[in-house]
């Protein structure tokens, strides 16, 4: 197991390095010179040269990359062109709401999705199964910005149960914070939850047909033991893979959700930075998101090893 984890960690580091290259060069492929956007209308040639030198944009791209990487490793992601502020602290500040919503949304969708899938598989062919399957299909088809707006209209404006928008830190006021994030979390996790429910259902149905389930039944075990100890532990293996694939969805979805619910998270930061051609900030956000996703995938991989002994002992 230790060897397995070490291998995964090394792999993750390599992935992050490759991501840093992609993040960096991707931004340089974008049209538009950041110096121009910084200087406003009709700058002189000398002014452009001066700003470019100041930002280090006059050096060869390779040199730029390595100096950026060296700084980034030390935690310095540069200074925002627009805000003239330290990008690292800017991002860390904005990362809290995004992570908060992301993690809660992930947990909710895994718990509810897997539970719904298991229930559907046990009640196969019954009305509960049909209900879950239909809802899951709907959940996957509905775009989340639309669901977000609909949620605001129904729960906030019509019923008045929840606040319309905004974010409050749980450290400040836990109850208020929960009230504000519950809807964005559900909306954000909706499609993942639906996907998980479907995957769990089909995976359970697949496992229940296996020979070792018959063996377990032939041992005279209780139905519950057969289902939860023997079947579910096998059925979650493909589900974990899906969890890993779901993470980028949640992070990517946060860009839209934060816009809909007016939350100052990293998604919004990145969006505005893109419009402002604030390359340094966009780069910082991208690398931050990439690292988060890579680390989350690392966790998924490790838990995969925990659930599947065939992986652990390779």
């Amino acid at each position, binding site marked *: 197991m230790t060897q397995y984890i070490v291998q995964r960690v090394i792999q993750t580091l390599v992935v992050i390095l490759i991501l840093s290259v992609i993040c960096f060069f991707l931004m340089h492929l974008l049209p538009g010179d950041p110096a121009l956007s910084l200087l406003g209308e009709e700058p002189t040639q000398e002014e452009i040269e001066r700003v470019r030198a100041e930002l280090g944009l006059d050096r060869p791209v390779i040199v730029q990359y390595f100096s950026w990487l060296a700084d980034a490793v030390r935690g310095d992601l540069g200074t925002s062109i627009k805000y003239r502020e330290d990008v690292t602290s800017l991002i860390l500040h904005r990362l809290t709401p995004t992570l908060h919503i992301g993690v809660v949304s992930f947990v909710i969708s895994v718990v509810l999705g897997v539970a719904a899938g298991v229930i559907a598989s046990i009640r196969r062919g019954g009305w509960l199964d049909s209900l879950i399957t239909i809802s899951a299909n709907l959940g996957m088809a509905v775009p989340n910005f639309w669901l977000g707006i609909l949620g605001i209209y129904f729960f906030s404006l019509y019923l008045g149960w929840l606040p319309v928008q905004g974010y409050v830190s749980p450290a400040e006021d836990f109850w208020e914070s929960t009230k504000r994030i519950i809807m964005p979390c559900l909306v954000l996790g909706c499609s993942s939850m639906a996907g998980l429910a479907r995957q769990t259902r089909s995976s359970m149905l697949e496992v229940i047909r296996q020979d070792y389930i018959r*063996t377990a*039944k032939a041992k005279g075990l209780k139905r519950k*033991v057969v289902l939860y100890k023997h079947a579910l532990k096998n059925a979650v293996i493909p589900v974990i893979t899906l969890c890993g694939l779901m993470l980028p969805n949640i992070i990517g979805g946060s860009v839209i959700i934060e816009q809909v619910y007016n939350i100052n998270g990293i998604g919004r930061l990145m969006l505005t930075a893109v419009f402002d051609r604030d390359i340094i900030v966009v780069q910082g956000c991208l690398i931050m998101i990439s690292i988060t996703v890579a680390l989350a995938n690392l966790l998924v991989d490790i838990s995969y090893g925990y659930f599947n002994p065939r992986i652990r002992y390779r």
Partner: protein
Amino acid sequence: MGHLLEVKNLKTEFKTDGHIVQAVDGVSYYVDEGEIVCFVGESGSGKSVTQMSGLQLIPTPPGRIVSGEVLYKGIDLLKLKPESEELRAIRGGEIGFIFQEPMTSLNPVLTIGEQIMEAVMLHLKLNRQQARQRAIEMIKKVGIPDAEVRINDYPHQFSGGMRQRIMIAMALSVEPKLLIADEATTALDVTTQAQILEMLRDIVKSTRTALIIVTHNLGVVARYAERIYVMYAGTVVESGKAEDVFKRPRHPYTVGLLNAIPRLDDPKERKLVPIKGLPPNLMNKPDQCPFLPRCTFSTEKCHQLPAPELRDVGNGQRSACYVDIEANREKANGQIEVEYKTSAEERKIKEDPILKVNQLKVYFPVTRGWLQRQIAEIKAVDNVSFQLREGETLGLVGESGCGKTTVARSILRLYDITEGDIYFRGQNIAKLPKRKLGNLRRNMSMIFQDPFSSLNPRQRVGDIVGEPLIVHKLVNNRKEYEEKVDHLLEMVGLDPHLKHRVPHEFSGGQRQRIGIARALASDPSLIVCDEAISALDVSIQAQIINLLEDLREQLNLSYLFIAHDLSVVRHISDRVAVMYLGRIVEMADWKTLYENPKHPYTQALLSAVPIPDPEIEKKRERIIVKGEVPSPLNRPKGCSFHNRCPMATKACYEIDPDLKEVEPGHSVACLNL
């Protein structure tokens, strides 16, 4: 006192696509304490479903137990709810089950210890610590070394034979009164099968546990059964004491089965007598003897009367047949109407080899990590040399993993050859560039093991058979093509009108005929049969063996016949080579090899094959080799067989013997000769 288990008139149905399949149709049987009873029948005869119905283990829906009584110590199990406390205590507690597929019957994510312990804790009411002790004890008892350590291992860390031992340990750990082994050794190699069955018998005999063996292998039945139930189409057609049923079978189906299988003690030239036709469809059965369409003893009476009931025919033997087989005993014993096939002497076997394999080596690299670093080599085939003369059949036998399939595929250049030469009609094809292989493959073809997955399910049968004709440009126009395809299908005994159908519309035996027609299409002179008949039922097997023999004679084909069934290999081959761990350990003409085997492995292998005759089985001396085939990754030093060999001496641990000719045409790789 009543029987331990008595089943009366059990009926089980399955609903599929609106049809009702009567899988078990009025089966009655009993088992007494300490008795070994065998259920024998072909696939689909309902023998497994019968056993599972009793414990309500069949999936419902689509299954449904319609009627009957299953009395265990006088309690009717069918009256109990499937999830009730009482039934669960009997299922698993009093009656243990061992299933067919050892590879898939254990839960892959739980340790074997946990899987044994949970049964022990449930039924023997022991605590975890005691249960662990019990599990270790049982694992030792079934012959797995280092039980204390291995109890924490997962199923994938064990071989198939080992997993079956674990299944047995699991079933026996709760001290059941009855053990049901449902095709428990079918997926295993012969030597492993012998080890497991011997062990099972010793255990049940010492604990007076009753044992039901469900199998299709008549040899196994003859070796172990005390009483037999023969099943056909969901009904018991014959039952009785093992000796009686084998000596005087009273049902035409039993007669047919016994005449359809090749035996180790058969006269070589006897042609197998297949049971004609196919097993009946169990949907909407007419009320008539189910065996009638395939029966060679039937009379007018059989056509008019409803399906016969089991009736006593004396000495406790029962048969469901109107005809007095005893009056036709000579016919039944296959003593009249015996057909003989053309003997090897009469067939034209030329002296020139069509195929000559010289020191063939096929190694597969084992890689690790994401850089695909090579850490070892699997020596799947290591220094194999043999010749195949034109018109001859060479049998290649050995247990799974011995490299026989790798040899076959390498000859067709489906695998890359590491070293060595292969001469086909004098031309060295081992190093032939890929683009020049077309012509070679026209002249050799292959028949595969699995008739289900080796045919493209989306292709029409005519296209499957005709494809080689187009690939090798053997026909000039459409008309010629159609004629050739029709001819090929006729040759293998299929109606050419069926060529527009797709494979799933055919039965297993018919599909294998399609595979043979495809192999014949390019008019090859050498055909490699890779376990071509292993997946087929006994009665169908005989049809295909006869077909292969007829074709060999008609078209003067040479076969490289690969199989693990030694009786079949003996029946069809002129010469036989025995492989062990990637090498040939013994090679001779069939007679010498079977009558005077020199290598200890060959001797053990032959001794492990049961002969379908209880009287012979009782007298036979058995050599049970210990252990399992080692992995080709860590081949033992010296002679690869030394760690299992009963005759191994010190020298065997050091020196790797070469294949030496001990008498003309008989080569053995053993130091102790």
